């Protein structure tokens, strides 16, 4: 059983690294495109993931930059979330898992997930409102369609973090029991 758990643990670390690299590339690509849209607007029709926001760029710079900022912030937060997860997986000691470091890291992860959920929700509602004024933003929907799932996940992870903190207290007390 212990051998199987180690194998699963290593598998999780590898998957987390792969996802982190993918999200970093996405965030990096979006950031570079953001810079290009400021200094070289002719590249706006050929953004990352073949996004064409040239019509939005022409109609309103304010809407373009605000929506793109949402997309960028969400992408960066997702990459940071997986970085925090990798840090947790690398520092977790399966022999003594209830450490204050792990408890703090899980709490931080729940904050990141909540931030992504809230930001996605705000972005989705903003996009919905802006679309009422005639702007076409449906191409950006994939970036914030799962906001409620993130908020739910944040609540679950926060509950786990709370239980983990209690586990740390119990383990510390156990360490000082002779």
């Amino acid at each position, binding site marked *: 059983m212990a051998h199987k758990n180690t194998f699963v643990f290593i598998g999780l670390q590898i998957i987390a690294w792969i996802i982190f690299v993918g999200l970093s590339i996405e965030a990096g690509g979006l950031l570079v495109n953001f810079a290009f849209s400021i200094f070289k607007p002719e590249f706006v029709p050929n953004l990352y993931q073949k996004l064409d926001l040239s019509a939005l760029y022409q109609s309103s710079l304010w809407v373009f930059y605000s929506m793109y900022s949402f997309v960028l912030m969400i992408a960066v937060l997702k990459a940071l979330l997986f970085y925090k997860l990798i840090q947790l997986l690398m520092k977790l000691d399966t022999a003594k898992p209830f450490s204050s470091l792990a408890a703090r890291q899980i709490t931080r992860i729940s904050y990141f997930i909540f931030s992504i959920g809230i930001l996605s929700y705000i972005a989705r509602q903003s996009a919905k409102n802006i679309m009422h004024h005639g702007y076409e933003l449906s191409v950006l929907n994939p970036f914030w369609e799962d906001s409620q799932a993130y908020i739910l996940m944040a609540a679950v992870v926060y509950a786990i973090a709370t239980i983990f903190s209690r586990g740390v207290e119990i383990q510390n007390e156990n360490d000082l*029991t002779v």
Partner: protein
Amino acid sequence: MPIIVNLDVMMAKRKMSLNELSEKVDLTLSNLSILKTGKAKAIRFSTLEAICRALDCQPGDILEYRGEKENN
């Protein structure tokens, strides 16, 4: 903490070192040190029994209650 551990007093009376006691009660030096310096949060009955047997004493010889008022 109101519970005082007088382990060093009993060890001096029985002329026993920490190493000797640790071997007799099968407890590590670090755990005994935690107990001796008053940092322990709890003690198991099995440990207390082993210490009392090794030092030929009663639990009351090792553990003392000193309330907050007495400390002040």
